[in-house]
């Protein structure tokens, strides 16, 4: 460096040396931005969700398949769609939904089945999957599958009264559990096994002798009341929609999917009602929560139907 100054001319090497760290930092920054700007599974998933919002089902299916290629595991992790809107990474569920909306029931059922197998769906989404799967099976002419209710349905034949709008369908349960993942059979003589993460109480972690049973009973009563309320609301909504359907509402005539979803939601309400009754009798908190989630899913779908049909 000193020699460079001694020559009395502008020292280009010295300037370049001084600027080298700046160039390095700038290059690293640009490289980071460029690398991070390439699309990963969150971007594909985001594109899929946005396409679903826009009812562009084909594009949604394409984007979600891309996301699955990049990250096949349905993690349920929150991913940003935009702003502070996050959706859980459930690409199979949304792929199933996109296929369902495109009336491609084979692919929809396959995607819903995979989503169930991954086990990341929450209770309400499981209920939705049951409704959409039920509609698809009806369309494909396959036996109807209703979630296996706890308790009274163990005989394999449901005594469920036909739900409004579903009288043409013989309701039966499926021992293979097509609507639900396999579940441990509750033993009436012992407390049911704590559900994996779905119950806020875990019996094995409660100190003995401080009213574990009471707490559990209180929780059971609380969730039961919630489920009953949801069932009541769901039945009201369903009855109103049935009235509109019988009155020949335009939306039902124009879109036969609506009637199919209404029937499936009714069947899910019936299933939830039976599950609630049986689970409550056996003190199965997991079953009661499952019934509540089913009822909530049915209510959500019925509200969407109500919005589509118009008040």
């Amino acid at each position, binding site marked *: 460096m000193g020699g460079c100054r001694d020559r009395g001319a502008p020292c280009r090497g010295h300037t370049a040396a001084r600027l080298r760290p700046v160039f390095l930092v700038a290059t690293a920054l640009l490289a980071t931005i460029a690398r991070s700007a390439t699309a990963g599974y969150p*971007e594909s998933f985001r594109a899929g*969700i946005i396409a679903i919002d826009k009812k562009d089902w084909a594009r949604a299916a394409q984007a979600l398949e891309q996301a699955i290629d990049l990250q096949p595991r349905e993690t349920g*992790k929150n991913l940003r769609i935009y702003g502070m809107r*996050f959706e859980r990474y459930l690409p199979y569920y949304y792929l199933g939904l996109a296929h369902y909306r495109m009336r491609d029931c084979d692919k929809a059922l396959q995607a819903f089945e995979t989503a169930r197998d991954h086990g990341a769906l929450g209770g309400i989404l499981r209920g939705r999957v049951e409704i959409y799967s039920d509609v698809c099976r009806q369309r494909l002419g396959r036996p109807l599958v209703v979630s296996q209710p706890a308790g009274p349905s163990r005989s394999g034949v449901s005594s469920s009264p036909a739900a409004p709008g579903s009288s043409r369908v013989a309701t039966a349960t499926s021992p293979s559990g097509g609507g639900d993942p396999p579940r441990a059979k509750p033993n009436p003589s012992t407390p049911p096994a704590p559900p994996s993460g779905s119950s806020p109480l875990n019996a094995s972690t409660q100190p003995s002798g401080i009213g574990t049973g009471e707490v559990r009973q209180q929780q059971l009563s609380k969730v039961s009341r919630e489920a009953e309320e949801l069932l009541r609301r769901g039945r009201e909504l369903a009855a109103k929609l049935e009235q509109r359907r019988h009155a020949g509402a335009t939306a039902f005539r124009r879109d036969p999917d609506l009637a199919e979803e209404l029937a499936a939601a009714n069947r899910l309400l019936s299933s939830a009602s039976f599950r609630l009754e049986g689970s409550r009798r056996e003190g199965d908190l997991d079953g009661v929560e499952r019934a509540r989630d089913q009822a909530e899913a049915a209510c959500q779908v019925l509200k969407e139907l109500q919005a589509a049909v118009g008040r």
Partner: protein
Amino acid sequence: MRLTMVTALAVALLAAPAAWAQTDDEVNAAVQFNFSTPGARSLAMGGAFLGSVDDATAAYANPAGLLQLTEPEVLVEGRRWRYSTQFADRGRASGVPTGFGVDTVAGVELGTAESELSGISYAAFVYPRPRWAWAAFYHQTAKFQTAFETGGIFAESQSGPGDVRLLPIQTFYDLDVSQAGLAVAGRWGGWAVGLAVSDVSLRLDSFTQRYDLPTSSYGPADFRRGTPANFQTQQADSDEVGFVLGLRWDRSEKVSLGLVYRYGPEFDLAVLSSSDSPGVPVPPRVIFTDKPDAVFNLPDVAGLGLTFRPSQAWTVTFDVDWVGYSQLNEKFFVIFEEVDGLPVQAEDFVLDDATEVHLGFEYVWTHLRTPIALRFGGWYDPDHRLRTETGPALNAVRFFPGDDEIHYSAGLGWVLGSHFQVDAAADFSDIVDTASVSAAVRF
């Protein structure tokens, strides 16, 4: 020793230009407001939001951002502002204190007036369609109040021997700029383009009362017994059309760029300067100035923002905004044509444009069932006080420069369920503290 009262006896006798802007009523020197973008989320990130604009605040901040929303959204924000307004209160600007009366302080002592305001600062409804989006919005663009009294500053006269003293004043200033409008966004090539058109409403009310000194020219200000010498008012209550033009380009979800231009319209402003007091008319009243068609020119804003999301959890935002504060000063109206026997020109008064630099960060705990966001940031707010650079020295006391400000901000956001969001933020600086809470619902 001769002591001259500096009063508002010099009036606008000459033919006035077609339009005037601010006046040399010193309360205008104390006015402090800024044009930060709406929303608690934006406030927490140092107001750096032009590249993101991914919620309902886009309708005003950068309408091009509306295209990002795919679900209808309603957002309401409330803000609280605490202003600390500095003004030249008492003391001596030049020469040595005489020791008479209150002329005992060397140098000018500044006073600080505190004021607090709150209200709904933003509300919007966004309705996205597959290829375009529209929104209706309300925005409190500026809200400012101050009120103070001065003791009257001494100075050596520039025009002759002896001292001069500014008359003590009581003054208040109340400014409210709000707008309600419609915004629309669509796509043009690789760019999202947005336009908002709004009805901008200006309510301005200021009053300055000057008092003669009841006993001695060196005596203390006495607003109870002092005789009103003259007063000045500025009033506006009108509506004009403003617009916002925005562009947004996104390389991917991770990198986006926003450009915005906000046009601030001109408003009618009535300026009055008169002898005595409006409540205590002492005939014969002399109207020095009665100018009903002066102009208040709301500054334009142009901004550029860059947003970078290195991961799902982190967001870094950076904005550079130019605010045309000098537009407030383009057609300056001189009420006091002579101060301390020296002429006053409109060109003496200076108000600089400001180039603000905003930087913000957001970290979201995405693994939580209901994500929580921590945000922080800061921004550089160059001084934009009305000041004088030439003319009578006494005017430089009334209109003195302020300091560049650094604002520090922080806030939190909660996503409750899949449709509800609450954000809270605070922004601190020496001259204004702002607190904000906003709630958004998507359906």
